């Protein structure tokens, strides 16, 4: 918090210019580390790889349109850190506008079928498409169907290190 203030002062900004929530992940082959402050969520594939689970539940204040920001007092107590997560092959990080499409808010679970087809599709992409915004996903998130169910703020980052399943008879066909 103090260093955030220092940075703001040094750059001639107000502290509130730095007001934001945080979602972060560092994934290694052997372990995973996650941080979160505020709303949105991180979802990862479970160990068997056939389902999905959230890392931290979105943090909201009393009201649906209130959350916590890095610039607020007492932020140290609110910051959530998971330093000893098991390795994962699939991860999705998303802002609050996506929450209601993929999380079951009353059961506090992940709606697996919302992610499964996107991850499968992701695994089929060529490596040179990695790191680029996907027009397919963009138009899906901008569709009328999605917009009737959510607010505008829909940021979604997904990553996989699974390879698409190759049909077994592929050699025979060649």
């Amino acid at each position, binding site marked *: 918090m103090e260093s955030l203030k220092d940075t703001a002062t040094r750059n001639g900004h107000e502290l509130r210019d730095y007001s934001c929530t945080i979602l972060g992940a560092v994934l290694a082959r052997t372990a995973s580390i996650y941080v979160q402050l505020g709303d949105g969520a991180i979802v990862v594939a479970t160990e068997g790889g056939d389902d999905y689970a959230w890392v931290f539940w979105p943090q909201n204040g009393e009201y649906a349109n209130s*959350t916590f920001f890095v610039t607020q007092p007492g932020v140290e107590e609110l910051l959530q850190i998971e330093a000893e997560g098991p390795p994962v092959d699939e991860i999705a990080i998303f802002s609050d506008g996506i929450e209601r499409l993929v999380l079951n808010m*009353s059961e506090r679970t992940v709606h697996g079928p919302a992610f499964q087809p996107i991850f499968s599709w992701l695994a089929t992409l060529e490596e040179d498409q990695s790191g680029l915004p996907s027009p397919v996903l963009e138009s899906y998130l901008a569709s009328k169907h999605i917009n009737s169910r959510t*607010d505008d703020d829909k940021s979604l980052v997904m990553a996989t290190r699974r390879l698409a399943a190759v049909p077994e008879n592929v050699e025979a066909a060649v």
Partner: protein
Amino acid sequence: MSFEQLPFVPPELVENPEPRCPCVLLLDTSGSMNGRPITELNSGLRTFKQELTSDAMAAQRVEVAIVTFGPVRVLSEFQSADVFQPPELTTTGDTPLGAAIMQALDLLDQRKAVYKAAGIAYYRPWVLLVTDGAPTDAYLAAAERVHQGDNNERKSFSFFAVGVEGADMSKLAQICSPHRTPVKLQGLSFREMFSWLSNSLGGVARSQPGTMVALPPPSGWSAV
């Protein structure tokens, strides 16, 4: 736990898990509202329903309850806008404003408890008071409760008051939180008022964390 507080989640909250923006309409149906005022108010309620349901998100997220006075009566419990049916109000009785405010705020507290038990997220609730008179009961305790709940620290609800011709505006100002001056209705433009209310609630119901909800100005229905 009393018999009235059953531990079940109401079915409408299971079927529709959208976050809710509850709004209590606290409407004066005392004798003096008889005639054109009540006719226009009823017409305004129908506009309210139409406008809320023309907004897909507001239709599912805004919940409306109606308390009338006097005597104080919960005319309709919280219902999402798509289910809500505007009632046909008739006039009777005096203006027990204090008791009516208490009833409205009790309703809100109960609804919040239901949302919490059901795991439903919600927005800061609204109360809209409409009256053409002055309280005929003790109202200071109710005013105190409004001040305690509608301020920048507590933010338990937002309390708006609208005075129809003949309303005691200085008493309304006493009841409202100091930062929310009561608005005087221009003539009987209830339809314009409800159109504003629908827009404002729609704005709240799609608002996101960290952004202030800018309410549209009450132009077209408030007298200056």
